[in-house]
């Protein structure tokens, strides 16, 4: 009887996950999947090197990423209600499957101790059940930020854990030249995650500015926040590797372009009160271009093109006669 129920739960759960995967792949489309693979391969190569060169960092990165997934996953109540008492077992299996490529890489690189730590770390993640509302309340008082900078209040409240970890790790491990550079790049990616959420019509109407002034204002706020948060990593990098300042400059420019692109994408497709999930992919492709040198100019072209599109779209919501 119990075995039958377990079988039923496993089949139902696999069905749900397969349906979800199918829908996501269908939404992305074959061409985009191929493009993503092309862009994703260099990133995978960098990641694989990390497992061979600095295995502790790689283990930490994988555990941290999956822990972040556990803390942010929105199906916890669903699993608790409909898959009880197997919810924790499902988490265990999912996280071990997600960590499997990393485990194999560590074993290939002959780091059995690190592999063991990874398995243990992943086994502990399902027991992470931190209530976020309490933590987020600590970030309630952000009165020093300007009244119009609501995205810069909302974003860090959503991903403060990730931001704090990146800032501290990036600054503390700055002796390893690529750590602060990767940290700055990732921090810029994390900071733009809430730029897919469209505010209400009223929150745009209230500005009564020209689209150009409006966009410049958004750039200014977002870039100020990004530069302030990246400051510890920038300083640490310069302390240890001052002679390589030009690499730091390039990474910061990439960060600036990513921030501006996210804002342009948002307002180019702005529809009041919606979440522009498609923009994630667009932004991922743009960021991926920076990993392949000869594709690096593409995001700059996209920036100009989508800035014009954003201005055009915003005319509908800012003050123009219709």
């Amino acid at each position, binding site marked *: 009887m119990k075995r039958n129920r377990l079988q039923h739960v496993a089949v139902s759960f696999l069905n749900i996950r397969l349906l979800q995967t199918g829908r996501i792949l269908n939404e992305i489309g074959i061409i985009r999947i191929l493009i993503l693979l092309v862009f994703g391969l260099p990133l995978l190569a960098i990641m694989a090197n990390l497992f061979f060169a600095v295995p502790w960092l790689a283990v930490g990165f994988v555990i941290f990423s999956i822990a972040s997934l556990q803390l942010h996953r929105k199906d916890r109540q669903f699993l608790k209600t409909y898959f009880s008492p197997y919810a924790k077992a499902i988490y265990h299996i999912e996280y071990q499957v997600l960590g499997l490529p990393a485990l194999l890489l560590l074993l290939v690189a002959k780091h059995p101790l690190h592999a063991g730590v990874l398995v243990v770390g992943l086994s502990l993640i399902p027991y992470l059940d931190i209530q976020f509302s309490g933590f987020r309340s600590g970030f309630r008082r952000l009165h020093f930020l300007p009244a119009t900078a609501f995205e810069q209040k909302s974003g860090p409240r959503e991903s403060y854990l990730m931001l704090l970890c990146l800032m501290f790790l990036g600054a503390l491990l700055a002796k390893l030249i690529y750590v602060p550079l990767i940290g700055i790049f990732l921090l810029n990616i994390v900071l733009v995650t809430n730029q897919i959420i469209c505010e209400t019509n009223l929150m745009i109407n*209230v500005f009564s500015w020209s689209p150009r002034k409006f966009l410049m204002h958004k750039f200014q706020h977002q870039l100020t926040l990004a530069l302030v948060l990246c400051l510890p990593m920038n300083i640490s990098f310069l302390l240890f590797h001052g002679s390589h300042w030009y690499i730091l400059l390039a990474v910061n420019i990439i960060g600036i372009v990513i921030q501006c692109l996210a804002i342009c994408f948002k307002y180019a497709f702005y529809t009041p009160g919606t979440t522009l999930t498609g923009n994630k992919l667009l932004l991922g492709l743009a960021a991926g271009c920076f990993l392949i040198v000869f594709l690096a100019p593409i995001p700059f072209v996209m920036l100009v093109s989508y800035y014009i599109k954003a201005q055009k779209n915003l005319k509908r*919501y800012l003050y*123009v*006669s*219709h």
Partner: protein
Amino acid sequence: MLVIKHLALSYAPEKSVLEDVNLELEQGNIHGLVGLNGSGKTSLLNCLCGGIAYQQGHVHFNNNLLKKEDVIFLETNNYFYPNITGREYFRLFEALQPSFALADWNDLFELPLDEFIENYSTGMKKKLALMSVLSFSSPIMILDEPFNGVDMETVQLMKIIIGKLKASGRTILITSHILESLVSICDTISYLNNKQIQRTFNPQEYANIELELFDLTNKQNEERIDRLIKPE
């Protein structure tokens, strides 16, 4: 006066939502707009506030083409930006509309401004949205289902506010599924059906409005329901 002439809207070819909509709304009056679900009420309101570009017709306000700044629109959905408090939401409006007296308005609505908006109830969110609309001084105010989800006391409060806005010369266009709430405050009520404004009622005709609009459909539905629910 707000004049809508021959307005037509379609989202795709052969999928028209509005056809030849004509309506004249007196300035400084409260106008109601009723219609069945999916009849195009919200689409019409979106056309007026510029959210949707219509294909035909024109809209004039006081003999000039209607401009974005002439209209402020309270949408039916209570969507707010996540992870911000009520106070932060209002600070945005205060910063850009300095005449807006947040504290005084909140004395009326009594919202917990230091809470995150996602923790507000449906009624609280509606109040929050209404307060932000009130910070604008546009001569035309469009309220899409303002009474949805709010308690009786707040409905009364909203009716008083809408009455005062009318007295200050604002033109107000309201939609509601609750006919009674419109009858008590509107100077005219228009009925949108079959993609057009079918009829506009004056206060003298309000007593028969329900009968005229729904008599036939009510009879048909009653017969159907009789077939479904049989006496024991």
